[in-house]
């Protein structure tokens, strides 16, 4: 068993970055995720593994530093919270367009605008449909525990490099700020420059004589080639949808009703499920782990088993619920229950919503 620690989600993410053999973190402070860079700075990862930590002048600079280093084949990450992530959208679109691997975290707070620093899940659309311009996707991992804040950094880098795609760890103020027990994985050594050059022949590591130069770009002025590139991206996304869906079913075997939730909403909904089960209500929890790819097929299968109603629980005015609707395709009623603007729902409210919106009529 790995090392056991009591850590904040933000700290676990930072520690996991070091252990995952990350080469660099570039970031800019913003509540509720400043502990990520603070932890890293205090840990002197440069002494531990040679990892670089740099406080950038802005979120835009940070994401572009990530773009540069990722294009050179290194394992790099950044993190921010909602307003800062909005600023990164152009950069993310570039990373997706140039097919670079990177991990970044959004510890979501309530919006819109400056909003509040309290937890929220209202950046679901931005994360899954594309906050930036163009037809691109990113893998979105939704940790529901501090343990997953750590594990998903490693998983995120693996997926990012396997598919050459940005991986977003979509967290929120609850997961970022809470402490839980976390089992830290063992240190993975950073790749040497030579290993990078060998493993990632697409990376700009310096053109060896007699070889073709490497170009990191998302531009093509020839529309035919650009469309071909887009088709290639779409094929890649399809592969990801086929192979990388991750989710957790809790009490779903005999469930007549299903709550769909992710992240801290899933934690709260799990409590609501426990409470409901005590009352004899046959309800289960479909906890999303990947938001993209979305487990549409798996929901359809549950539909076939005769689920009578779906409740989408999220800290937003209704975003993920659209994907649930698109997945179950009218097979059963789908309702949404949301609190937002920094308010976190209570298990009692979720149970009530289930009874009133789904079972009640």
């Amino acid at each position, binding site marked *: 068993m790995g090392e056991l620690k009591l850590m904040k989600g933000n700290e676990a993410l930072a520690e996991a970055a070091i252990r995952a053999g990350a080469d660099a973190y570039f970031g800019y402070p913003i509540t509720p995720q400043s502990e990520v860079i603070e932890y890293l700075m205090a840990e002197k990862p440069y002494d531990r593994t040679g990892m670089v930590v740099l406080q950038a002048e802005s979120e*835009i*600079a940070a994401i*572009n530093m990530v*773009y540069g280093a990722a294009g*050179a084949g290194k394992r790099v990450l950044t993190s921010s919270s909602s307003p800062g992530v909005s600023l990164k959208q152009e950069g993310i679109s570039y990373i997706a367009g140039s097919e670079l691997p990177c991990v970044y975290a959004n510890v979501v707070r309530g919006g819109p605008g400056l909003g509040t620093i309290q937890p929220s899940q209202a950046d679901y659309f931005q994360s899954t449909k594309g906050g930036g311009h163009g037809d691109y996707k990113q893998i979105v991992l939704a940790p529901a525990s501090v343990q997953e804040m750590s594990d998903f950094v490693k998983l995120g880098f693996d997926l990012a490099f396997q598919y050459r795609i940005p991986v977003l760890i979509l967290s929120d103020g609850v997961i970022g700020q809470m402490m839980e027990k976390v089992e830290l994985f063992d240190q993975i050594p950073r790749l040497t420059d030579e290993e990078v050059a060998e493993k990632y022949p697409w990376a*700009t590591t310096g*053109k060896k004589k007699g070889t073709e130069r*490497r170009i990191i770009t998302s531009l093509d002025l020839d529309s035919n080639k650009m469309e071909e590139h887009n088709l290639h991206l779409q094929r890649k996304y399809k592969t990801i949808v086929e192979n990388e869906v991750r989710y957790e079913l809790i009490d779903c075997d005999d469930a007549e009703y299903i709550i769909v939730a992710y992240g801290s909403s899933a934690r709260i909904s799990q409590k609501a499920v426990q409470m409901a089960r005590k009352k004899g209500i046959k309800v289960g929890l479909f906890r999303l782990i990947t938001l993209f790819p979305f487990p549409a097929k798996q929901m359809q299968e549950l539909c076939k088993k005769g689920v009578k109603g779906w409740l989408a629980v999220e800290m937003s005015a209704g975003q993920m619920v659209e994907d649930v609707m698109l997945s179950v395709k009218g097979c059963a009623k789908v309702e949404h229950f949301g609190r937002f603007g920094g308010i976190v729902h209570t298990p009692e409210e979720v149970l009530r919503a289930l009874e009133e919106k789904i079972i009640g009529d």
Partner: protein
Amino acid sequence: MAEITFEDIVKPENLVYKKTDLMTDKALSYCPGCGHGTAHRIVMEIIEELGLEEKTIGVAPVGCSVLAYEFMNIDMTQAAHGRAPAVATGIKRVYPDKIVFTYQGDGDLAAIGTAETIHACNRGEKIVIIFVNNGIYGMTGGQMAPTTLPGMKSSTSPFGRDVESMGNPLKMTELVAQLPGTYFVTRQAVHTPAAVRRAKKSIRKAFENQVNKKPGISFVEIVSNCNSGWKMTPTDSNKWMEDNMFPFYPLGDIKVDGQLVK
């Protein structure tokens, strides 16, 4: 000396100048007479002369030189508008032993990219910035840049730049020279053989600074023409540049070895 024919001269052993192999064979996409081509070439000549080809990574953001990667025969990263210094910082920080440079236009470096430029310079990133100042946004069709001269016409200052409402031309180079993080700051041109030779010397110095891990950025401005944007012939534009750009953007070293030149 009628006995010496063309064929007698044009022999491999008599070769004295040939485009460097670090420029690809693609025809440059620039307008006839555009200084970008010359600037590209001398940067690549220096990289070749210093033997840096295998460890150099270039960064070119949008601007007419967005396609630099088609012409510079080394590893290249295309950067978002204004963000090349951040992109280069990202690369250099994870590869402190490689050679990293940016190649940016004035719209890019001095407008949208101001923060990235100032902060990369202020942090003293150990990179080279090649800054091609043609006083205009060439690529997008000749709009006013921060560097456009007072009274100068562009597609967004069709009656000439009005300083009162549109602001002053920005001397970014003088500004970054004020920062302790810049080690070498110079302004050059590439429109005459003499200018090219001087510019090349500066670029060599800039790259040598990086090779020798000098503390700070080496920043080379190249005042250049944009005949399309200025709506002049190439030779007229070079003349206009001498008469109008150079008085405002005087050529020469501004900071050498970390010391401002008085």
